[in-house]
């Protein structure tokens, strides 16, 4: 992967992780904050609604107190005069004071007068019997003992919840004795709720105490609870207790979740702006990185790659600037310099080595030639010494016994002839590198060599000749010498007797001759140099025989190999071409 892509991935994943972190933290911290804020706002709204309700009740109580501590009312309980009713308890009073019920009880708890009014239909209605059940003698509402006593609160009637106030009836100056009790009631119905909603600018509802959140509300302190309805609306609940202190009603305030929506908008905007900023910063970082580092690195990499492809250490990389990258380029250059130097050194070394090898090869060739020359001269010297010895002996005898001159001169003549043949052979050896090849019956040549070998009786010989050996291109006399040498070696290798096996076979374009003995074998360390002059393992032997064999066989275009196991025997294998190109054609196949 390219370093640019890696950087892209690193920056991308950093932005991703950063955004995820931002989302989670903003969601949990900011949004929770907004939710808390919303809950507090709803609580305040609920409290405001409660205050409005309380105000309505206070007003009712104040009106009641005003009427109960009034001499007219005080007298009315006694004389039940019609004037009081006609002037005070008219429909207008009910409408103006937003009253639904007014009840007058005497001190014994007996209803003196009562009137209920239906605001909707603007008419007097009967007093609900459910209310009268709460107004038995000595009930909470009818048991005030002091002029300043009073009860106000809520009673949940089947018809509708009722705000109620009860005050003792006294004189206008507040003095007693208490003549009875004045009860005023105002229904907390849809109309009153609408009025409260208008005052508070809230959406209010009243629910019965059977609502499902009652247990939770009973736990809460104060008895207010806020629960979001959905993403748009949230509801605040408050428990309203009746005059007996029992859970009477639940007041609900429904509000639009503007704060929460604002919170959501804030979080979204926050995340979006953070992402945008992150993206912008990433792009800037990437651009800057690319310009200041990445493109220079890839440029450096490209240059090094080019140098590697061209394989030329004399080239240099070029990077501008004064930082780690330019220092890296400098190091690459100094390494290239060292590489160039060491290559030059290696080149010089290898050149001098090549020269050395060439020189040593020349020396070796010279030494080989010298050795070959030495070998030939040693052979000639040795061979010449016998006829020379004969001549010397003959001359010695001739001096002493001139009468035998004829036979002695014949001896000398024979020895001279012998020496001449040796020199002739030498001359031929030196002049002719290629032997004089003639189609020869190889089988007959081998048979004759074996017949003239005269091996000791302890050695048994066997000869196996294959077909196609009668026209092998050979220098018969030189090849015979090769055979004689090898056969003699085999005999010498078996001083205690053994088997000498000679075989010859034509195989394809080659003739293979094998000479095997069961003698002492050749030590392994001697095998490598076996065919080299003067490398004999025989004490006193000169080791010229096998060198001659190798040279002669190779001059025939063939090769000679040896396979030997100490103590088991030796096999020499000669392979020579069966046909001589152009002069001896292979016989026509039938």
């Amino acid at each position, binding site marked *: 992967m390219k370093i640019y892509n890696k950087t892209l991935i690193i920056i991308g994943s950093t932005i991703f992780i950063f955004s995820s972190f931002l989302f989670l933290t903003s969601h949990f911290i900011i949004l929770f904050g907004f939710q808390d804020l919303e809950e507090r706002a709803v609580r305040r709204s609920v409290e405001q609604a409660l205050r409005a309700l309380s105000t309505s009740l206070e007003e009712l109580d104040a009106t009641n107190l005003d009427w109960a501590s009034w001499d007219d009312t005080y007298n009315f309980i006694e004389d039940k005069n019609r004037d009081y009713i006609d002037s005070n308890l008219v429909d207008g009073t009910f409408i103006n004071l937003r009253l639904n019920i007014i009840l007058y009880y005497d001190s014994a708890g007996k209803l003196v007068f009562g009137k209920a009014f239906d605001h909707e239909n603007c008419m007097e209605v009967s007093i609900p019997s459910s209310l009268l059940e709460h107004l038995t003698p000595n009930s909470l509402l009818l048991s005030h003992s002091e002029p300043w006593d009073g009860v106000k609160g809520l009673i949940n009637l089947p018809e509708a919840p009722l705000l109620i106030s009860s005050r003792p009836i006294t004189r206008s100056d507040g003095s007693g004795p208490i003549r009875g009790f004045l009860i005023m009631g105002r229904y907390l119905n849809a109309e009153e709720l609408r009025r409260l909603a208008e005052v508070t600018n809230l959406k209010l509802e009243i629910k019965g105490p059977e609502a499902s959140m009652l247990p939770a509300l009973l736990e809460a302190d104060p008895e207010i609870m806020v629960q979001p309805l959905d993403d748009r609306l949230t509801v605040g609940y408050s428990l309203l207790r009746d005059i007996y202190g029992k859970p009477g009603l639940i007041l609900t305030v429904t509000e639009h979740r503007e704060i929460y929506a604002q919170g959501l908008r804030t979080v979204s905007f926050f995340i979006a702006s953070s992402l945008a900023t992150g993206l912008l910063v990433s792009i800037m970082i990437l651009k800057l990185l690319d310009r200041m580092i990445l493109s220079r690195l890839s440029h450096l990499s490209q240059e090094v790659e080019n140098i590697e492809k061209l394989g030329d250490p004399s080239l240099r990389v070029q990077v501008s600037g004064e930082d780690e990258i330019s220092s890296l380029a400098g190091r690459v250059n100094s390494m290239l310099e060292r590489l160039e130097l060491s290559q030059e050194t290696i080149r010089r070394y290898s050149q001098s080595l090549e020269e050395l090898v060439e020189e040593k090869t020349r020396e070796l060739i010279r030494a080989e030639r010298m050795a070959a020359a030495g070998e030939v001269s*040693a052979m000639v*010297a*040795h*061979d*010449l*010494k*016998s*006829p*020379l*010895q*004969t*001549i*010397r*002996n*003959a001359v*010695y*005898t001739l001096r*002493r*016994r001139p009468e*035998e001159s004829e036979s*002695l001169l014949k*001896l000398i003549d*024979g*020895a001279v002839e*012998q020496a001449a043949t040796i020199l002739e052979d030498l001359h031929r050896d030196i002049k002719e590198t290629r032997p004089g090849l003639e189609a020869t019956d190889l089988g007959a040549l081998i048979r004759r060599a074996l017949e003239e070998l*005269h091996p*000791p009786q302890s050695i048994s010989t066997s000869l196996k000749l294959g077909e196609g050996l009668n026209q092998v291109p050979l220098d018969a006399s030189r090849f015979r010498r090769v055979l004689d040498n090898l056969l*003699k070696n085999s*005999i*010498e290798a078996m*001083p205690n007797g053994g088997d000498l096996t000679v075989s010859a076979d034509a195989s394809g374009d080659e003739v293979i001759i094998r000479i095997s003995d069961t003698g002492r074998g050749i030590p392994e360390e001697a095998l490598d140099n076996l065919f080299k002059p003067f490398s004999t393992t*025989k*004490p*006193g*032997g*000169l080791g010229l025989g096998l060198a001659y064999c190798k040279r002669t066989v190779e001059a025939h275009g063939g090769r000679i190999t040896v396979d030997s196991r100490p103590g088991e025997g030796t096999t020499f294998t000669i392979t020579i071409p069966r046909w001589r190109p152009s002069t001896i054609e292979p016989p026509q196949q039938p």
Partner: protein
Amino acid sequence: MKNKWILIVDDDEGLVSTFKGILEAEGYNVDVATTGRGALEKCEDTVFDLVILDFMLPDMRGDEVLRYLKKIHRGLKVLLITGYSTFKDSIDALSLGISEILLKPISPEELLRAAGEALS
């Protein structure tokens, strides 16, 4: 000296016959062999006083013949003759029981001297 027997072993017949003539002229009894095997057979039949042995024989090497000869007659005197000039330095004549090593071509006087010394 008249009753001394000498055996000459060399594969060159001209050389053998001329040496034989020279030694016989000096009064030695001389027999010849042209192979190592022939030499050993002669030694089994006759007790020779001196053997003049060529190192390079067609069937055996001189040192091999020498070993067999010494087995037959421990005190036998032997003169070794060879055509290889380097040979003289590479052989410990004394350890092999050789009286002297002579290089071909030997002057007959030298041979007679060596034979005389060996037999004395």
